[in-house]
Structures are given as C-alpha cells and as structure tokens.
C-alpha cells in the first residue's frame, strides 16, 4: 500500500481518497433522499385529516435542547478531527465520545418528543401530516442512531489500533456524516419547526 505522507493521514492512500470521494457522492444521494422527504412534508403539511396540526404541537423547549445538543456535537466532532490531525489520540477519542454522548442525548429528547406527540393525539396513523412528520424526523433520528453504533465501532478501533490510514479515514468520514446530519437538522429546525410555530 502506498502511503503519501504529504497528505493528512485520512487522505494518505488511494483507497482513503476514493472512500472520501465516494462518501461525498453518498451524501449527494442522501440529499436527494431528504429533499424528497421534505417535499412530501411540505405537500402533506396542511392535510391533518382532523388530527392535531403543526402549530398545535411544536414546543420550543425540546426543540432548543435538540438543536443545541446536535450543533454542539457537530462542533466536537470537528475538534476530534482536528485533534486527529495533530496526532493526539486521547483528545480525539475523548471528543469523539462526547460527540456520541451528545448524539445519544439528541435521540433521547427526540424519543421524548415523539412520546409527547402521541400523548397529544398524534401518532403515525393519525393523518397524512403525522405520517410525513414522523417519517422526516424519524429518518433523521434513525440516521443519528445509526451513527451512534457506527461511532462506537470506530472508537473501539481507534483504541485498539491507534491512528492508521484506515481508522483515520473512518473517523474523518464519520465526521462528514455527522456534519451532514447537522445540516439536515438545521433545515428541519427552520422549515419544519419554525415554520410550523409561526
């Protein structure tokens, strides 16, 4: 395997380089996926079929907690990659762990939020609006949850194997994924919650 030492470790081999390009393409597909989900949500937003509507449901407090937690976790994973570039293994793992814990917090709040919605009389089967809402939020939440498992797997590898081109590559790609989910959340925040509360 040819390792190019002039580049950062995560880009240092041909495979690594390709993995990162490929992941960007994958994010392209994910954008198409979320764009479709947003499209469905906008179209079905007003079709509440007698059930509760957006304005009736959304609560500012959980929203703020979720947003704060997820944005912070995006920041910490950025710091983790930075620490990795500086070769500081402990800091990388620590920041990575903090990211995952914040992610876990996000998922927890989201589950609580869903529980509240059901309590308010909005479940998956209530209306076209509820289905679109739960699907959009749920897909994002499922991505975050998947990220938690994936992140744990990478942390274990970082602990066991240290910084290698492969682990560095995985860490970096995970950070791309996580930032992407953050961006999606910003869209959800603006176009689902803020718009709904207006």
């Amino acid at each position, binding site marked *: 395997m040819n390792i190019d030492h002039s580049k950062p470790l995560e880009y240092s081999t*041909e495979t690594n380089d*390709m993995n990162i390009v490929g992941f960007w*393409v994958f994010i392209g597909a994910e954008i198409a996926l979320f764009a479709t989900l947003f499209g469905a949500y906008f179209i079905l937003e007003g*079709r509440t*079929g007698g059930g509760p509507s957006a304005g009736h449901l959304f609560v500012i407090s959980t929203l703020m907690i979720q947003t704060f937690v997820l944005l912070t976790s995006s920041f910490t994973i950025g710091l983790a990659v930075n620490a990795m570039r500086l070769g500081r293994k402990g800091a990388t793992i620590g920041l990575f762990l903090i990211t995952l814990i914040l992610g876990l917090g996000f998922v927890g709040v989201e589950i609580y939020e869903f529980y509240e919605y059901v309590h308010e009389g909005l479940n998956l089967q209530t209306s076209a609006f509820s289905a679109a809402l739960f699907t959009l939020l749920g897909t994002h939440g499922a991505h975050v949850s998947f990220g938690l*498992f994936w992140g744990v797997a990478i942390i*274990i*590898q970082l602990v066991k194997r240290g910084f290698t081109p492969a682990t560095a590559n*995985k860490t970096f790609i995970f950070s791309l994924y996580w930032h992407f989910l953050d961006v999606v959340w910003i869209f959800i925040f603006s176009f689902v919650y803020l718009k709904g509360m207006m």
Partner: protein
Amino acid sequence: MEFFEQFAVPNPTPTIYLSMVAIGLTLIAVLAGISYFKKWGYLWREWLTTVDHKRIGIMYLISALLMLFRGGVDALMMRAQTSRAGNELLSSAEYNEIFTTHGVVMIFFMAMAFITALMNFVVPLQIGARDVAYPRLNALSFWLYFMGAMLFNLSFVIGGSPSSGWTSYFPLAGNELSPHIGTNYYMIALQIAGLGTLITGINFIVTIFKMRAPGMKLMKMPLFTWTALITNLLITFAFPVLTVALAMGTMDRLFGTHFFTMDNGGMAMLWANFFWVWGHPEVYILVLPAFGIYSEVISTFSGRNLYGYTSMVVSIVVISTLAFLVWVHHFFTMGQGAFVNSIFSITTMAIAIPTGVKIFNWLFTMWRGKIRLTVPMLYSVGFIPIFTIGGVTGVMLGIASADYQYHNTMFLVAHFHLVIIPGVVFAMLAGMTYWWPKMFGFMLNEKIGKWAFWNIAIGTCLAFFPMFIAGLDGQARRMYTYSEEAGFGIWNLLSFFGGLGLAMGFILIVFNVYYSARYATRDIGDDPWDARTLEWATRTPVPEYNFAVQPVVDSREPYWDAKHEGKTLFKDKISDIHMPNNSGMPFIMCVFFFIFGFGLVFSLWSLVIVSSVGIAVCLFLRSFEQDDGRHIHAEDVQETERKMGGDDR
C-alpha cells in the same frame, strides 16, 4: 393451518400449480446437479464470494437473461389472452398480475441488470482499471439485486403477485383496494434491489472519476464510459426518490399510515408524482448506456472514429438534465391545468433535440466508413429506424392536448415498447454479442445471431406497430378482454404473432449460446472485431488482474492508435499486482436481506427482527475487518501472460 394459509396464492389455477411443481423440480434438479458434480466448493469460491467486476458482470448477465425469459413468458401470455375478442385463457385477476410482473421484471430485473452487467464488465476495462472502486460493495450490489429479484419472483408461488400495474398507483395499490399481500412484494423487493442499484451508482461514479488510466482525461473517455458515468449520476439522484416513495407505500400497507390513502388527508397523486420523478430519469438510466454501446459498436464496425464526440457528450448531459424536468407528462390528464401541462409539454419535446443529435451523429459515423454488418452492427442499424419511430411518437405524446387521446391506450404501449426494445434490448444484445468474446473467450455464431436478429426486429415491428392503430381506435391498455364489436381483434392478433417472433428470437439466442460454447473456436486473438478502445488491448478472456501493466493513454481511441500509429500503450514493466480478497459477507448479508424482506411481506416480525440483527452483525464485522487484499506476484503475471498471448509486453 391458519399460519400456512397466508402463503397460498389467491387465484390458483392448474397452470400455476403446474408451474409450482416445475419450479420445484428445476430447483431440486439444480441443487442435485451441483451436489452430484461436487461443484458447491467451486460455486462458493469462484462465484458466490467473488468481488471481481468481470464475474459480477457475468452473474448480472445470466440473471438478466433469466429475467428476460420470465418477463417474456408474461408478455406472451398477455398477447395470447388478448389475441382474440372475448378470449378466456386467463381471468382478469391473472391478467392483472401478469402485466404487473411483466413490467416490474422487465424494467427492474431485466433491463437494469443488463445495463449493470455490461457496465460492470466493460467500464473498468475501458478505463484501464483493475477493478471498480469498491469491489466488495459491488458484490453487495449484485446480491441485493439478486435477492430482490428472487423475492419478487417468489410471489408467483408464495402468497400471490402484485396486480396493480408496474406503476402501482395508489389508492388502487393501497390496503383498501388491494387487500392482498401482492403489493407488499412489490414495495419490498424493489426497495432491496433499489438499494443495490444505488450502491452501484456510487461505486461507478467513483470508479470513473478516480480510476482512469493515466492520460485519460474526461474528454478522452470512450462514449460508453461517458454514458455509464451520467447514468450512475442519474441513479444516485433519482433512486432515493423511489426509496422514499416505496418506504411510504410500505408504511401505508404495513403500518396503516395515510400518505396515499383516500382518507385522513392522504394524497394518492403524491405517489404518482414521486414515482415518475424517479421513473422518467429511470428511462434515461436505461437508455443512456444503450446509446453508449451503439456509439462503440457503430464506430467499430464502420471502421471510423465517432462523429461529433463533443456534441455526443453534451447531448448526454443535456438529456440527463431534462430527464428530471419532464415527469408530469406521465399524467397530463391529472387536471393540473393548461399552464403546467404546457411547460412540461415543451420540456418533454425538447428531449428530442439532443436525442436527434445523437441519431444524426451515428449516421455520420457510418458516412465514409467501411460498414461491416456483423450481429452487433445489425442491432445498431436496426435500432435507428425503429427507435426513430418510437421517438417521434414520443414527441407526438409530448403534445399535451393530443396526449388526452393517447394516454392510457395501446398507442402509449406501442410507443414505449418501440423506444425501450430498440433503445435498450437491442443495445444489450448488441453489447452482449460484441463483448461476448472478452467475457468467455469465444464468439457467438454470426449466422444464428443474424437469424435471431431478424426474428427480433421483425417481431418487434409486428408486435407493436398494430398497437398504434388499436390505441387510436380506443383500446385502453391493461384490458384483459374486449368485445367482438370493438374491432380490436385483428391488431391484437398481429401483435400476438409479433410476440411469437420475439420468442423465437430469444430461443435462437439461447441456442446460439449453447451452439457456440460447444463448437466455436477458442483461437480468436485479443481483438476479434478490430476494435478501437482499451478493453480490447488486454487478453481474451480477460485475466483476473485485467491489465498486466497499467496502460497509458493520450487519445480517444488508444487501442486503435496503438495498432495503427505505433503508439505504446504499456510502458511499465510487470510488477506485483494488488487485488482485493474474495468475501462471503455480501452474500450472507443479502441472504439476511432476503429473509428480512420475506418477513416484512407477511408481517412475520420474528423473521424481521432476527434478520435485522443478522444484517447489523454483518455490518459490525465488516467494520472491524482488516483486509488489505493480496498481491499477485510479477512472475505469476508473466507466466499467465506468456500462456495467454505468446508475445510479452
């Protein structure tokens, strides 16, 4: 007993029971045969676990031909049923299942697999690469596709097939109007296969962007590689839409959500929109690689370089962009008003412009050439007139007002078959025949091939031209029967004969494979067609490492220039070659996907949970796996090259 009743087919007839028995016996025979000849190990080592793009391509090819058979039998049954007024060969319920599976199988499991087969086999060779960017994912793609296809076909014997058309419009496909599980198969099998396609898309984009031979700039890529690149971009951006639509459809059916239902705010039109936002690009996903194949074949057999390379590339890009802007023309009649229809009418017809450019460029490629009418060239030459008729009727359908008369009639059916058969099937058969020697080391018999071509070409015309007339006379599509007075009888009878011609052509192709495998010479050299691009610069059949030495390119037709202008393609010395290891993981994981899908279809949650855990474990194991591949030593490469070629490079 109740547990087993859900697996029974809803409309059993002696034919279906006979088919079940036949399928069961075939399966047993295949398994017994493999055991008897002790081929399980071979099958596992060389095929089930392979990550070699060439073998994956061949597996796609075999699957595509099998699915062509399945879809073709469906088509024949439909044509037989409608061949005369008031025929009672099939009941309405059976007919509806058959045209549904015909469409799904042909588009998703035949055409998609066929283009993926050729892309897999050819693209890495054409760009001088040793494999695709992610060989392991490539295997995963194939097995996802394969399991999706098998799951879908299983519906024939277990539980019953979907019956609301390949477009599966809601609310017809919803629980209220289709209470049977058939549509679950549709939603879930397509989801699994679609995931495989999406992964292929990503894989090939990276392969083409990052793995081209030194010197092969984008504008020096062969046209087939160009079309593969654009097709995979289309896949990457169009398939997620289908993923979402299918997921929503699945939730409507399994979890009682109200995306597309008739009550609680559900909106059936949303399905139609999503389906065609994916569905129209899908047409170009299929047809663009076909255009690429024609470009290669026509150029090779005219003995000339491709005319207007740049305008060819530009037109592909324009087509792919327009592909996302025309979906409404699939339902001009949905009442969106004259304004919206006008816009989509214009974008639709505009696609004719880049397509026309391509037709004229092919014609000009033949101009002042030296045309050899081999089988691949025959398909290409036959493609031009038939596709032109299919294409101009497409423009006619694009006129929104006129579409109010064509929509949902046999006219439409004639149009899209006359586009897809010459545009995709002819291309695939041309490509298959053209690259066959590279795949298997012998050529298909030209004489039988020509007979097959004429059967297929004439069969296509005979099967579909009468449908234009039947459509204009008011025969709606998907009608399982019509009355004597309607006067459609003669056109449908002609169609049936055309269908028989197509069937004959298919039989001849299969016979050709058998005949040529048995009798054709193996001594054909590396370049039997006197071709122009890189895939012919390596050995026949292609060794697992593709190229002993990575080629260096400085023109659009590097191999032609190497043959005729004495340019050197292979400059380096042979050194150790790094190859990926085989892996059983993709196959095993996809078996879990199959179980997962089956569990979902019948809402057997225990199966779903078990298989989900299986998939998750596979993902985890993969994450922790350290596999840096293996090396083929330089001496071994030299040895292989000496055995295969004689001259050393």
